[in-house]
Each structure stands twice: as structure tokens, then as C-alpha cells.
């Protein structure tokens, strides 16, 4: 019986180990086909779901990241209204653009990734554009959102590459 117990444990450990490394390879293989391998890896590995996801699942994880970053940026915009009231006009524009990202683009991407990826691609591309437009509205050096918008553009690039794999 002891022999059997050991065999069971060893076999299962091997299965888990192989599973983890084989699955981990999907993340690695997928990220290699995106414009920013390092960013892709860090985004996906930070989410426990990535260890058992297929490419659709990885795409959905990244769309979640877009949503989270978008929501966080809206929070920053709200703070900036108070700390930089002279930029109200630009902040209004960004508010509108980021609302589109979080409400329209993310929603479309989630539904479309699962069944009709080309619409997900245009939604993700649009999200990057909305972020760029927001950033471009500020006079040089005055944007309180530079880090967030640059990050958004990069995440959208990576996400788009993954969505294109589904076409």
C-alpha cells in the first residue's frame, strides 16, 4: 500500500509539474508573438487564471487589465480636477475618452473575443486611440496622466496582437 501511495503522489506531482510547465508555455509562446514580450508576460503572469487559459482566456485577462487601468485612470482624472483645475477642458475630453474605453470598448471586446474576434480587435485598437487622443490634448509636459496613457497604449498593442491570433 505504501508503494501505491508513493506512486500516486509521484505520478500526480509529475502531472501537475508537466501541466504547469506545458500551460506556462502557452503564455510564453503567445507573448512572444506580441510587440512587447516583457509587458505581456508580466501582465499575464500576475493573473492566476493565465496558468490554465487558452488564447481566448489570455485575451480576456488582458481586456480585464485594460478595464482596470481605465478605471484607475478615471480616478486619476477625478483627482486632477481638484489639483489642476486649469486643465478642466482637457480633463473633460479625457473623461469622455476613458469612459468609452471602460464602457464601450471593454464590453465589446469581451463579447467579441469569444465569438467574433474581428470586432474585439477594432475595440482594442480604439481603446489605444482614445488614450492617445486624451494624452494629446494636454499642453506639452502638463498631463497628469502620462504614465497611465502610455501604459494603456502598450497594453492595447499587446492585446491586439493576441486578438489577431484568433482571426
Amino acid at each position, binding site marked *: 500500500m505504501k*508503494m*501505491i501511495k508513493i*506512486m500516486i503522489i509521484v*505520478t500526480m506531482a509529475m*502531472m501537475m509539474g*508537466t501541466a504547469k510547465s*506545458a500551460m506556462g508555455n*502557452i503564455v510564453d*509562446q*503567445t507573448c512572444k*508573438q*506580441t*510587440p*512587447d514580450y516583457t509587458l505581456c508576460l508580466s501582465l499575464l503572469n500576475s493573473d492566476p487564471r493565465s496558468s490554465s487559459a*487558452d*488564447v481566448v482566456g489570455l485575451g480576456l485577462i488582458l481586456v480585464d487589465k485594460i478595464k482596470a487601468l481605465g478605471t484607475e485612470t478615471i480616478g486619476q482624472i477625478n483627482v486632477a480636477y481638484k489639483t489642476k483645475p486649469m486643465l478642466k477642458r482637457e480633463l473633460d*475630453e*479625457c473623461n*469622455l*475618452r476613458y469612459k*468609452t474605453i471602460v*464602457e*464601450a*470598448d471593454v*464590453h*465589446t471586446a469581451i*463579447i*467579441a473575443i*469569444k*465569438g*467574433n*474576434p*474581428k*470586432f474585439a*480587435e*477594432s*475595440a482594442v*485598437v*480604439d481603446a*489605444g*486611440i*482614445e488614450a*492617445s*487622443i*486624451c*494624452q*494629446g*490634448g494636454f499642453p*506639452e509636459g502638463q498631463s497628469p496622466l*502620462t504614465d497611465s496613457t*502610455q501604459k494603456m*497604449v*502598450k497594453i*492595447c*498593442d499587446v492585446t*491586439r*496582437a493576441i486578438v*489577431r491570433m*484568433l*482571426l
Partner: protein
Amino acid sequence: MASSDALLPISAREEDPLLSDGSRSDPNAETHRRRRPVKGLLAVSFGLLFIAFYVALIATRDGSTRSNVDDAEIKSDGTATATSRARLAGVSEKSNDQLWKLSGDRNTVAFSWNNSMLSWQRTAFHFQPEQNWMNDPNGPLFYKGWYHFFYQYNPNAAVWGDIVWGHAVSKDLIHWVHLPLAMVADQWYDANGVWTGSATFLEDGSIVMLYTGSTDKSVQVQNLAYPEDLNDPLLLKWVKYSGNPVLVPPPGILPKDFRDPTTAWKTSAGKWRITIGSKINRTGISLVYDTTDFKTYEKLDTLLHKVPNTGMWECVDFYPVSKTLVKGLDTSVNGPDVKHIVKASMDDTRIDHYAIGTYFDSNGTWIPDDPTIDVGISTSLRYDYGKFYASKTFYDQNKGRRILWGWIGESDSESADVQKGWSSLQGIPRTVVLDTKTGKNLVQWPVEEVKSLRLSSKKFDMEVGPGSLVHIDVGSAAQLDIEAEFEINKESLDKILGDASATVEAEEFSCQKSGGSTVRGALGPFGFSVLAHESLSEQTPVYFYVAKGKDSKLKTFFCTDSSRSSFANDVVKPVYGSSVPVLKGEKLTMRILVDHSIVEAFGQGGRTCITSRVYPTKAIYGAAKLFLFNNAIDATITASFNVWQMNSAFIHPYSEEAVRALSRT
């Protein structure tokens, strides 16, 4: 013989056999186990489990990492990923031109759309729902005096999602009344989307509709539906067949690569035949099924056609055209005087391509006349060289025409779409026939009925010297129909043709890459500039460019240049177009329909068509003007043209009065 595929369980209860317990419930094995040493057998079964699991992992991994032709492009663009905040990094040229590229330099100010600019963009006489998102045309047909149009629609937002079938009817393909939704996502087999489909008329005059459903597990299946009441000319209500789905993805076809069934045609064996686009790896294909009752199908072993490296074929369309007559043909027509068209929408590039060829009914295959421009190859023919996708034809038995519908998406940001509350148009329906003069391309033309919108007209004849611009005063210039004929003066033509040292430009020229309408050549560009501000700070030129080609022949190009159509930096502004065949003795002709944010241009009677979406910020309302221009260096152009003001089509929301009013027309 009923396809066993129809029995494949794709229900909500499906389990993937590979992931379930690898052991089999085999009673004999169980009793054997009790007799044999437990240890050994346990070791063996664990070993098998281990192997099965490992195989499953490998299989999943392979499935997820399908080879990506875009690898090279993405990598090279990846290194070029600048941190320019105004440029979307990593968007390779290889990917769809018609998707986003942000214009301007890094310091461009964000463009702020106001309601005045946005509400101007809505069209006056193109089909669009009152609000929200639309995409593919579905199941167009003519029945009991009404043209029916169905379409992919999101009832909840101005972006894609929650797709159901919208519905509208018209007596003349121009004046529409919206009807209630025809089909919604109320079954497990279309829970994630009631997608594109086509109608077929049976011999008894009844109608069957085949459409793609995205199931609750996002598997693409084909479903059958039919009108609840054939006595209702408005076909308000539709019934889904209780035995749906009638087709599921066959072996070898992935669950998301199986959609958009065509109208059926009769085979010589008396069966109905349909084709459905798909792909195997990167080869675009079209599957063929035969049926007698639209409920059970027999998949042919042969494909209608396939073309390597074209990716997924969406919205496949297949129909006969007459070689000799300028009329439409019913989808079932065949014979020696007939060629067949295969058309597909390329998922990868969002471009519709078609090819002319020969259909072999005995085995359901088709071969193109010219394999070098086979369906989907980048140089193959297109219905339209601008923004035009997911198109579908139907046979109009009312007037003996084949009519083409095309989805015209937006070229602006989703933010603007959400702000204005709508997205997408349909092109003006076009008749489609084979070009009996060239035999090598189709010819499309806006349906005659669009002329009923023409109000006042003005006729012009003028000679325009090189480097001129003439304001054409027609009053309001956002809703126009322009028909024009151009001639280049003989001396300029002879000079270019006779001059052996004159560069053979035509081989290098393309609308897309040659710099647009401001780049001047000996014999062009010349044409009209529509939706132009008087300062010309915003304008959309539609023009011919004539260049010397090989063997002292002239080659003519027809282009629309939207690069300066708008100050806004969040809209797509390409130069679209293509070469256009011009036969000996023909004058150069163009027709332009202008309707606010859409411009449809037809060159040489519809041999080359270009649809553009434009979003001027200043050249709107009374400030939109029309110009005639000649940017040629040498040539003097004689232009003879008519400009009509176009009325609105007054597309009405659903009401009994609106239906009655239309019935009387």
C-alpha cells in the same frame, strides 16, 4: 443521407471526453481487476492517465499557438514601437488599413466633437436604424410587393454586441420603414448572437431563412427559420425550427470558423445546395452542403473552392451572371451563357473580393477564369475600393435584377459613435451585372429608384485649363447626385503618347501610395472636390488620374482622397481607389452620391466603385461646397455634368400609418 454531424452534441451539457476521467466504465475490466494484482494494474492505469493527460496538454498547446503569418511583421514593428503618444505602436501595415492609425504628430490637440458636427453626420437617404450599431446585411428579399431588409443590430449600444436581426421594408429600396426586430437571441443555439444569414424561395413561393447562431458556448452553428405567417406581406414574425441547429461545424472545422450560409440554388439532381465559408489553417475555403428539406444536409467531399493564405472567408456569396444580357439571374440559373461569381469577405483584411469563373454542378466545384486574381488574393477584384464589407446580393424577381447590399462601417472613433449614439450605414443598393464589354469584371450601379430623390438639377459644360479650381454653385452641397463626363484635350494626349522619353508612370502609380490629389501629373488628377470648405482646408476630391502605361497605352485610375476631408485627428483618412478599364472611344465618366458623412463614387459606369466615410468639422451645413478641379500640368479638361440636389428618404420608425403611407406609393 442525413449527416451524422447533425447528431454531434453541442448542447450545454457537452463534456469534453479528454478532460473527463480517463478510465472507461467497462464491467469486464472491473471484474478482471478484482482478480489481478491491484498494484500492477493501478500502476498501469496511472501511467495511462498520465499519458492521456500529457497528450491533452500537447493538443491544447498546439491549438493555441497556431502559426501566425503576422509574426515577422509584429516583431519588426515591435522594435519600431516608439513611445510617440500620438502613434499607435505595433500597428503593422500588414494589418487592416481601414482600422485605426492616429493622424498628426505627437503634439496634436485632441479633437472635441460637438453635437452640431456629430448630428450633421447622419445621412439623409442611406439606410440606417434610428440609433445604435448595425453591421452585415442579412436575408434581403422581395415578397408580396415589399423589399425586405434584415441586418445585424445591437439594440443596446452604438458598438458591436448583443446582436439580433433588425428588419425594415420598402417599396423601392430607398424609402424604408423600420419594423420590429425579426429575430432575437432567445435560444441556446443563438444565445451569443443571431448572426448573418440568407433567404431562399422554395418552388411554392414560401421562404426559408438559414442563419448562423453563436451558441451559449460560442460555437457557430446554422439554424433554420421561416415566416410565421406567409399571408403577412410585412413578414413581421419569424419562427425558428424546433430541430435547430441544422448544421454544426463538421470534423476538421473549428467551432468559430463556420458561418454565414448562402442562398440555396437548385442542382440538376433536383436538390438544394448551399455554401458556407470557413478556413483550414490559413487557407480560406467554402464548404458545400446539399439538402431537400433544409433540415437535414449532406456535406459534399469537395469544396466549392479554396485559396491558400487568404484566412477566414466570411459572408460567402455565390451566384450566376449572364455573359450576354444586362440583367440579373435567379440564383439557380445555369447554362452555357452563364458565368458564376464567388465572393468572400476576408476576415483578416476586412476587404470583400470576388472572382468570375465556371461552376461544375456535378461535383459542386468552381474554378476562376484567372487564377492569378483568385478570390481573396490582395490583387483580386473588389466590389468597392473603399469602406465596404460583408456584402450580400439577392435576386430581385420583381424587376429581374441582382442587387448588392454592403455594410459601410464608421471611420471615426468609438467615442464619437457613442457620443452621437449610432454607428454604421448600408450603401445604396446597387445592381450587379457582368461587364459584357470587358468580360472580366462586374459592373455596379445605384438602383434606378435613387433617382426619385432628385430635386432641382443644374447642368454645366466647361473647359478647365491645367491647375484650375472652379466653385460649382449648387446651393446646399451635402446631399448631391453628380453625373459627369470628361474629355482630355487631344493635343495633351498625343503629346504624352508620342513622347518616348515621358516616364511610364502608370506602372508605379496607385491611388493609395501616390500622394493623393495634390500630386500633379501631365494628365491628371482632375475631378470634383466634395464636402469642401471654401478655404479648402477640408475637402474630399474624387478624381481620375491618367498616366502613360506600357506599350504607349494610357492607364486610368479612379481615386477618392479623404486625407484632407477633416481637421479631426481621430478619424481614418485614407486615399482609396484603383485602376479602371477605359475602352477605346469611351469618355471618362463618373457618378458621385454625396450624403453627409458618406461619399459613393462610381467610375466608368460602375467598373470601379469607391465608398468613403468622411467627417468634416467645418465643411458642414451651409459651409459645405462643391468644386471642380484640374490639377494636371498639361492637359485641358472638358467637363460636362449634371448636379442634382437630393431629397431625404424620410426613413420612418415603425407605425401603421408609415406602412400605409408607403403602400400607397
